[in-house]
């Protein structure tokens, strides 16, 4: 069994070591701060990095409230019955849908169907961009948030709720004062997993808003807020995909540099989830 575990760990370490050795020549703070130049063969990663950041924020704005409220409803309010079961099955199925299918759904639903009438209604000329890509990622990661939140809520013993109800505390008061404070770490873990997927997935944003190249400002405020919500944007996963497959004579260290930064980003976010989980265990209150 120990050997099996090593079989899991060794390839990961090998991949990490290989990527970081290959990427070593380009890795620097400047590499993060510079915009890509000459079709990505030179310069740094700022434009896709900041794009991924806003994509994550954008998808969280949709998926976190919807997912957490859905989990609260399913776990705390919904009565056992066929509707509850149908919703549960739907959530599970949604989790199993390949991301490319979500991409096509996002393209059809958000970019082609909803955006034109929306533009007409408000007199805008938005195209597939941060908004539509965020929505697509949100739909894709909804099951992650719902499942993690339901697990976290379900881990709070039912007896606590009954004790509160017997004191005349309403369902919502009970949730707010007892259930949520004791499940917040678990819910946050789900949110962090969502962030990892949003940052790492290429397919869902491929058709729904990400672009390979966009000139953004080299300095000032515009460098921090480079993309409008109705504008195509660059993203790390997309950037890596294109520079690895589409551009001739791409220097190897640029590909590995991009991969290394993306992996570091995700490892960093993941370790936040691990720290949270450890703290949750240490602070267990019953």
């Amino acid at each position: 069994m120990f050997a099996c575990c090593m079989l899991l760990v060794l390839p990961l370490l090998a991949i990490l070591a290989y990527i970081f050795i290959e990427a070593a020549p380009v890795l620097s703070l400047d590499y993060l701060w510079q915009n890509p130049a000459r079709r990505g063969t030179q310069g740094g990663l700022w434009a896709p990095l900041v794009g991924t950041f806003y994509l994550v924020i954008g998808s969280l704005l949709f998926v976190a409230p919807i997912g957490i409220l859905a989990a609260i409803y399913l776990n705390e309010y919904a009565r056992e019955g066929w509707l509850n079961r149908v919703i549960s099955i739907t959530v599970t199925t949604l989790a199993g849908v390949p991301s490319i299918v979500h991409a096509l759904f996002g393209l059809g639903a958000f970019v082609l169907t909803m955006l034109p009438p929306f533009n007409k209604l408000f007199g805008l000329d938005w195209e597939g961009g941060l908004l539509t890509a965020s929505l697509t990622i949100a739909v894709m990661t909804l099951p992650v948030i719902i499942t993690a939140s339901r697990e976290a809520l379900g881990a709070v013993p039912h007896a606590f709720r009954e004790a509160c109800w017997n004191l005349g505390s309403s369902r919502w008061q009970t949730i707010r004062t007892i259930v949520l404070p004791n499940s917040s770490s678990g819910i946050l873990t789900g949110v962090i997993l969502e962030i990892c997927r949003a940052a790492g997935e290429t397919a869902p944003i491929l058709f729904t808003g990400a672009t390979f190249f966009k000139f953004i400002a080299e300095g000032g405020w515009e460098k921090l807020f480079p993309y409008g919500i109705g504008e195509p944007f660059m993203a790390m996963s997309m950037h890596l995909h294109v520079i690895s497959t589409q551009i001739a004579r791409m220097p190897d260290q640029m590909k590995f540099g991009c991969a290394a930064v993306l992996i570091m980003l995700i490892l960093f976010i993941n370790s936040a989830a691990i720290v949270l989980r450890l703290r949750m265990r240490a602070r267990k209150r019953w």
Partner: protein
Amino acid sequence: MTTNGHPHIEFRGVSAFYGPKQVLKGISFTVPRNTVLGVIGPANSGKTTMLKAINRTLDFVGGARFTGDVMIKGENVKEMRDANALRRRIGMVFPLPVGLPLSIYENVAYAPRRMGITAKAELDPIVERCLRQSVLWDEVKDRLEMLGTRLSGGQQQRLTLARALSLSPEILCLDEFSIAIDPVTTMRIEEVLKELRKSMTIILVTNLVQQARRLADHTMFLWRGDVIELDSNEVIFSDKPKDRRTYEYVNGIFG
């Protein structure tokens, strides 16, 4: 002994069901104000369900419902708009000790806080009164910031009692409250209950027949969802209660 001419608590043909299973079979009885009703009977008699019908927490149990009327001061609990207001009038202590994952202090202050009482000057006396009434004060007064869930079973049981008293309810329902509490402490709580009955009506569900004998004015023998007998303690615990089964149960030769 009445409230506006009504008994404090009145059951009128109350039946309760969990899905298809009937656990109360049309029971009727009254509890006069400021008296103690002892309820005895073996497991699965419907004792706990009866209490859950009074404060309507049966609403929270999936598949459970009850028919018939539960009246409090002549008012039907089913017709009360605000079930939470009803629950605040009734202190409930169930057999499993439950300390909320809050400090001891906040456990007792929980219900008052939900009522908008947040000033420490107001909460402090409430917390001390309730912890004294549940005979827990001396053991925890120096560590009120400790988590309630870290207390021992018996202490958590008394914490539950303290919480139930925190809104000064008019009715107190105790379901096997002394199950995890040592006999000496139990006796001290019983003394407190004798004091409390001056200001509240108490329903005492107990497996300890002698506890009902000591504390109750009337005792009800509930068996398989039926009231077998309800009478004053003089009759129930005499040699000749009206029903043979009561005599057998009280004297431990039932079954």
